[in-house]
């Protein structure tokens, strides 16, 4: 048999990295742009008055069409506030072009990017809410997470919370002279909050949330038949089972049809980022579990990746494989859960969800045996893992358990799911054509994960900017093109099949690396970042791109800035766009198809 030779096409010239190309092109056109000169920082410093032009050029000319993350940083020592923008090229993948704009702390005016990217809407409101950055030209700039009438900007470095003890943990009162006290005994209820001057809580009329209801009434011409009909503005939530948590929608309706919608959130806000900035680096890992509590393993992963970039640690091979195992199992668990809830929202109460939960339970049993907890796993550490795989899970040897789970149980439930949901005509009727979002809208609204891929954008961080060992694994990125609820459902189903494919490839590696090291160096509790700097760690969470933006001072023991790009939060931005014109019953389904977890939305 003749030997077949495969010709390898060589690239003519090594193509320039898209990020470098975009940065140098920008610098050529805008000579006032400079590099971020601080050690271990990167990005382009853009003067506030040039920001819109630069961003438009970046989007239209350089192809960086996706604004992933917008956040603020308080540089109190320089008297400045900084806004950091992470943009990506969805077609070519790769790393980000980072724009940074610094403004005076007492006069923080930055042009809003909402005209270019509507996806900046909630993120800019968040930066306004927590840092007091004024985005000029923003259509609806008001507080989003804190309540109206809240005094101060919590993420500024000089703001102190009600139970403030010290700037950084560990607190001195705990050891060696520990005398136990309760924070609320020192700072009594009712005296633990500050209000703006002249503002009295008892004068607040809770029934008239003027700002929220502003612009919600819709003027409509008198109907031809002359029957007097009114539009009604109703509140759905915050306490409502279909909102998946404490999430509120102010909806103006004509009969059953949604005309306008405003999401109201922040009921579960605990200022995770401020807590994170008081915490030590290590202390933040269990807190990340509590963001998207359905997929805590992958939350851990994103955070440790960001800190590992700062530390420069090398993760041992076995630890990487176990990480991928955990993260892909988490993806399956999350999608089973979200599909179960979507079916719930469609009105098929509990039955489908409970069948899917059986397999979820088995995976959680495994998490519990490995990490010690079913949902709050706290399993990953900087440079590795907390523990190796357990010896046995529910009385079965671990390797045998995983083999059976991955090769028998999970494929079986996915097949069953296909038969009784995918083929079900009612599910189809209720979801095809509902909550549509075009490709352009999905990109400009900064949606991510299954939302983006259901609208025809084949973008997955695991492929676009591979981390861990994802570049060595063989898997496809499912994509569909209609951008409706049905496609989001199908993308999730297909992703579970892809995750299974990855898991089948991971298992042999686990056997091969058995007994290998799982941690780089010795376990350390006082982690210090030797040189300081910034890092952005992002992973493809089941719900979309989860990013951690962390900055640290040299030899710092705690993050200076700790920001989370939360997929559940940003995916809510196009909620109004998707639900206008549909019935209320469909609105619930549209919300279910986004797959939000309020722990992550409100942080």
């Amino acid at each position, binding site marked *: 048999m003749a030997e077949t030779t495969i010709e390898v096409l060589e690239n003519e010239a090594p193509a320039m990295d898209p990020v470098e190309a975009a940065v140098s092109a920008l610098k050529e056109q805008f000579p006032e742009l400079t590099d971020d000169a601080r050690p271990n920082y990167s990005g382009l410093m853009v003067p506030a008055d040039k920001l819109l032009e630069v961003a438009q050029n970046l989007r239209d000319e350089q192809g960086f069409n996706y604004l992933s993350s917008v956040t603020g940083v308080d540089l109190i020592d320089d008297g400045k506030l900084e806004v950091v923008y992470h943009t990506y090229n969805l077609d070519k993948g790769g790393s980000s072009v980072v724009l940074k704009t610094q403004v005076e702390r007492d006069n923080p005016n930055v042009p809003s990017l909402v005209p270019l990217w509507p996806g900046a809407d909630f993120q800019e409101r968040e930066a306004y809410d927590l840092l007091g950055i004024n985005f000029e030209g923003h259509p609806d700039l008001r507080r989003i997470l804190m309540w109206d009438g809240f005094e101060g900007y919590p993420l500024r470095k000089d703001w102190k919370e009600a139970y403030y003890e010290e700037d950084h943990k560990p607190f001195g009162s705990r050891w*060696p002279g520990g005398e136990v006290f309760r924070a609320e005994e020192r700072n009594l209820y009712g005296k633990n909050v500050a209000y703006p001057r002249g503002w009295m809580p008892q004068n607040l009329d809770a029934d008239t949330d003027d700002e929220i209801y502003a612009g919600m009434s819709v003027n409509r011409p008198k109907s031809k038949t002359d029957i007097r009909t009114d539009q009604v503005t109703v509140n759905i939530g915050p306490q409502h089972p279909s909102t998946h948590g404490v999430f509120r929608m102010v909806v103006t309706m004509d009969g059953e049809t949604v005309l306008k919608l405003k999401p109201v959130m922040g009921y579960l806000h605990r200022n995770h980022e401020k807590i994170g900035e008081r915490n030590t680096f290590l202390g933040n890992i269990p807190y990340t579990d509590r963001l998207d509590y359905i997929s805590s393993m992958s939350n851990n992963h994103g955070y440790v990746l960001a800190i590992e970039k700062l530390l420069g640690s090398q993760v041992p091979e076995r630890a990487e494989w176990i990480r991928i195992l955990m993260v892909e199992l988490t993806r399956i668990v999350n999608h089973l859960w979200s599909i179960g809830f979507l079916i719930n929202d469609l009105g098929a109460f509990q039955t489908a969800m409970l069948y899917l939960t059986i397999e979820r339970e088995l995976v959680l049993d495994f998490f519990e045996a490995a990490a*010690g907890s079913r949902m709050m796993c706290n399993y990953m550490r900087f440079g590795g893992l907390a523990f190796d795989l357990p010896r046995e899970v529910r009385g079965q040897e671990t390797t045998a358990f995983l083999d059976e789970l991955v090769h028998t149980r999970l494929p079986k439930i996915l097949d069953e799911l296909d038969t009784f949901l995918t083929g079900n005509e009612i599910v189809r009727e209720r979801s095809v054509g509902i909550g549509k979002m075009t490709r352009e809208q999905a990109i400009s609204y900064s949606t991510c994960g299954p939302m983006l891929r259901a609208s025809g954008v084949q973008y997955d961080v695991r492929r676009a900017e591979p981390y861990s060992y994802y570049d060595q694994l063989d898997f496809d990125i499912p994509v569909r093109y209609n951008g409706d609820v049905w496609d989001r459902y199908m993308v999730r189903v297909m992703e579970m099949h892809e995750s299974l494919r990855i898991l089948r490839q991971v298992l042999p590696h686990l056997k091969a690396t058995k007994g290998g090291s799982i941690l780089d160096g010795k376990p350390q509790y006082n982690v210090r970042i030797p040189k300081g700097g910034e890092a952005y760690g992002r992973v493809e969470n089941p719900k979309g791109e989860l990013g951690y933006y962390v900055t640290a001072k040299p030899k710092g023991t705690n993050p200076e800035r700790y920001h989370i790009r939360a997929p559940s939060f940003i995916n809510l931005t196009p909620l109004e766009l998707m639900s206008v014109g549909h019935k209320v019953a469909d609105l619930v389904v549209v919300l279910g198809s986004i797959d939000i977890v309020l722990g992550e939305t409100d942080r």
Partner: protein
Amino acid sequence: MYGLGVLKGLGITLKHFFRTFSDEVKWSAKGGRYYNDDALAVRQSLKTEGAITVMYPEEKLEAPERFRFVPFLVMDDPATGQKAGKDWCTSCGICAKVCPPQCIWIERGKLPNGRPKPEPLNFYIDIDICMNCGYCAEFCPFDAIKMDHDFEIASYDRSAAHIHDKERLSKPISYWRSIAPGRAADEEQARIEEEEKKKKKKRK
């Protein structure tokens, strides 16, 4: 045919429905599907068929060794007639420093001359604040603090019952060996090896 998908789906529901009953029939000769340890073990394994319900509180899931819920302090097994043994804790304070929500308070012991004594005078954990992350047990260099498996600690009065003091926290080492035999044995082995290393160093 329109509606066939719905019928097939209902078939699956029916299958699940009957599986539970066939399983119940299968177990009826062997002590029943519920309130039976053997049946529970199968129901919670990969071999499970039908409903996976655990009849809590009559039936309880066995906690895996690494399960973590609220720390306890390790002490030697008390001698006969005595209430408490020697604490393993040296009040070095690592657990209080590593604790993410800062729920541990330690008062270090003092010698008569005022110098620190390596044992805790007082040790408090506010279990309302504890987030069960397990860092204290993970980073304790003396294996003196461990995560418990006892999760049924609800009480009527939070102000009195939810700050655990040293007396409430201390449990004998035999208890740890009973809830996590594998890990306790591993730690024992590691301590012996460490001791031998030290001896060798001294000889050199």
